[in-house]
């Protein structure tokens, strides 16, 4: 790999589930909203195409971590809203913890310089 930066794709793959679960922590969201939230909060660094987002959503739903429901709001069209299930909440916390531990470990390894 000629690019000296870390492979975005690989990073995304490892963290995708966590990112999606995290956007659903405060409130249920529909697919487009989830994608937008991720882009917004990462200031555009992480972006999901529909082609990768939706299979992920379905996988999470299949695992029972999120649950999709069709909702109709006043004056709006029917949309599918995903909310975190209790199992999803636990998974989010566990993933967040291990990610943070991992990130801290990486930081410790890479930021300490032996002067």
């Amino acid at each position, binding site marked *: 790999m000629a690019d000296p930066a870390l492979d975005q794709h690989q990073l995304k793959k490892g963290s995708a589930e966590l990112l999606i679960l995290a956007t659903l922590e405060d409130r249920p969201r529909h697919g487009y909203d989830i994608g937008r939230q991720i882009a917004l909060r990462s200031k555009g660094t992480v972006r999901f*195409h529909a*082609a990768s987002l*939706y*299979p992920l959503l*379905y996988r999470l739903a299949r695992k029972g971590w999120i649950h999709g429901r069709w909702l109709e709001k006043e004056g709006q069209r029917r949309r599918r809203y995903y909310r975190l299930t209790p199992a999803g909440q636990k998974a989010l916390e566990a993933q967040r913890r291990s990610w943070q531990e991992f990130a801290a470990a990486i930081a410790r390894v890479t930021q300490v310089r032996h002067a």
Partner: protein
Amino acid sequence: MPDWRAYVKSKLPPLGLRGGRETEIVDELTQELEQCYASALARGASEEEAVRTAMEEVPDWTALAGEIAAAEAPVAAAPERPARLLPDLRQDLRYGVRALCKAPAFTLLSALTLALGIGATTAIFSVVNAVLLKPLPFSRPEELVRVWTSWGGYPNGSVSDPELHDWRDRASTLAGVAAYAQRGGLGLTTGGGEPETVNVAATSANLFEVLGVRAALGRTFLPGEDQPGKTGVVVISQGLWRRRFGADPGIVGRTVSLQGEPVTVVGVSPAGFAYPGAETDLWQPAPLDRHKPRPRGNHYLRVVARVAPQRDLRQAAAEMEVVARQLQAENPAEYPPGSGFTVALQPLREQMLGRVEPALLLLLGAAGLVLSIACANVASLMLARGAGRGREIAIRTALGAGRARIARQLLAESLLLAAVGGIAGVLAAELALPVLLALAPPGLPRLSEVRIDGVVLGAAALLTALTGVTSGLFPAWQSARADANQLLKSGRTGAIAGARRPQKMLVVAETALAMVLLFGAGLLLRSFAKLLHEEPGFEAKQVATAVVSLPAVRYPKREDASRFFERLRRSLEESPGTVSAAVCSNPPLSGWINDNLVIIEGYVPRGPGGRPDPEYREVSPGYFRTLRIPVLKGREFAEDDDAQHPRVAIISRSLAVKYWGSEDPVGRRVRRPEEPDSKWIRIVGVVGDVKQTALSNPVMPTLYLPHLQSGLVSTMTVLARAAVDADTSLADISRRVRELDRGQAVSEARLMEDLVSESLSAQRFNLRLLGLFAALAVALAGVGTFGVMRYIVEQRTAEIGVRMALGAGRGQVLGEVLREGLALAVAGLALGILGSVVLARTITALSSLLHGVTATDPLTLAAVLLLLLGVAVVACWAPARKATSVDPTVALRSE
């Protein structure tokens, strides 16, 4: 705003998910794209940019489908649940419909191919069903037999009154013995007006009883109504009743006039009943006087009998053999030792249908071959398509679908295709049937009953299901075998490796089948060409013919009839439009034969069957001139060869050769033992041989007698050779008959040329149909070869590209592809030759349809091979050219 929903639906490969899940996913993806598009517009993007932005959300739909499929898959793959067969089937079918709609070209081509095959088979089957399969319109028809007198080489001899009476008295194995004679066309008049010519069968009173048929209206004949003085009753056919009497329910008891004789209608036959022939309009008791029977040598009756209950044909035949020996012992004069006389029994079904059965079954087999080729074609199309659908199938496998499930899905598709083809095929058959029937030879019995009924529809449905399974099984098996893992990883086309070989096998099979059919058609064509070159022995052009039956009421003495015909002949000769005219008892190709024993002066018969029994014919002066039959020796009959002059005869060349060899028969004498006084008759001439029954049959030795000297026949055929227009002569005959006798009807008025053409109608029918089937087969096989070769070239594009990049020339590539295609053709042809030879050996019926060629005619074989090789070259040419136009760089990139 673009219709994103339609976009998603068109892009997303079918996922095969249960319930509404698939719709949900489509909805969700649609909303996503709509939102992307809308927000892009909101950001100030142009319409075009917004669309592109939305589309970029999903760059690869197949990959997406794969991801979704994997995501939706059960966490642990659940085993197949066979209990859900029905819902699964419904889903399979729904999925199939969508899959087929997405490939309209494939669907249309396949359905059309199957429609051709199913249509052809259904149409022929409807004829086979009506003619061969439906029971004969008699009660317990399997018990009915025809009884013939058999004379050495002639197994189907007519029967005389005394013989009929003897059989009735002596045969205990026969429950009923009935007789009839066709009286030909007679004039029917109802309350004045023009006479209508009706076909009359003169029958014994028990004919209907023996056949087990009741009248639809009124009654049939009573016992004793065939005795003298009681025969003035008739039963009319359902057809005549409707046509002539407007289905008048009060017809029973009405008096009509038949040949000027008043007769009472006592009944109407049931619909569908036609015996002895479809053309029979009316039945009248034949006078069969028990006490004063006609001479034993006067064979004119046809006999049908019912085998007694608990007896079978073999027992009846054995008993009749004994009866024959008794009769022979009692009447040595009528059945001399050399005559080879016996009594022969033949199942009625065999006698009625035996002649047409082989040809019809052969045609059905040919239609079946066309259908097989169609199946092979569709199977190979499906294989090619299946190869392109590898990824889709892999996705479904990843979804947890088992192999059996996938195979079933593909089978559902082929069944759907077959169903579409089947419906189209039945419709096509319905449309083709009238044409088929119009082409059918007139001799085909029960033609009017041919229709697409429940039985035919059932058979078509069965055929369709069978077609669906046959054409789908192979591809389904192939696809299910494929390794899903490997496919998902492989390139975008997702070709199933190794799919080429089964396709090649199909091309070989198609070519072989087409070869068999074409060879069969070729043989019939050669036979037909030979038939057309057969010399009938006379010149049919410009000759008009008509049949005149003189009623015994008005022409009681035989001299009266002779005088009438002689006056008619002279009147026609004087007509300015006529070159010459004649009358005769039975003209060539009329199908009527009438053999008679003859004693030749100085000739001693050797062995059984050695007694001369030539065809016997009464003709007028001018007969040979009118038909342009060459007089080889001696002279023609003259006007003064009448009752006042010594008796004379003319013989045909084959008769002369058979009994006189190289000697000159003119001046020699013959005698007819049948005649009461049996005087010597002097031979005055030898004429050329004439085909009497059919062009395909050998000539029969014939004895001609002047009708003015024998005058035994009151029904004669009038012949007139026209100077310019035969149609005018046709009208002239009717006019002059009526001039001589106002109440006299004319029947079977037609041109001799039509008679010749009609005598070939069965062969023409077989040839046309088989030719059509062969053409279809060749076309289908050609298309099949083309499709497979194109597919192979496509699959090999990269390989060819590499080789061309490495310096292979275009000519080399062209030759290679052509060679590959031709190798398939040659393999198919070799198999086809083998098949043809085996079929020719096993289907002995084939040789009964051939004339002048053997079933393994090498010339036909060579022509067929050349033609099919040509078709193969044409079919391979375009794919081969395409291969040479491969651009190495493009080809390599595509990999």
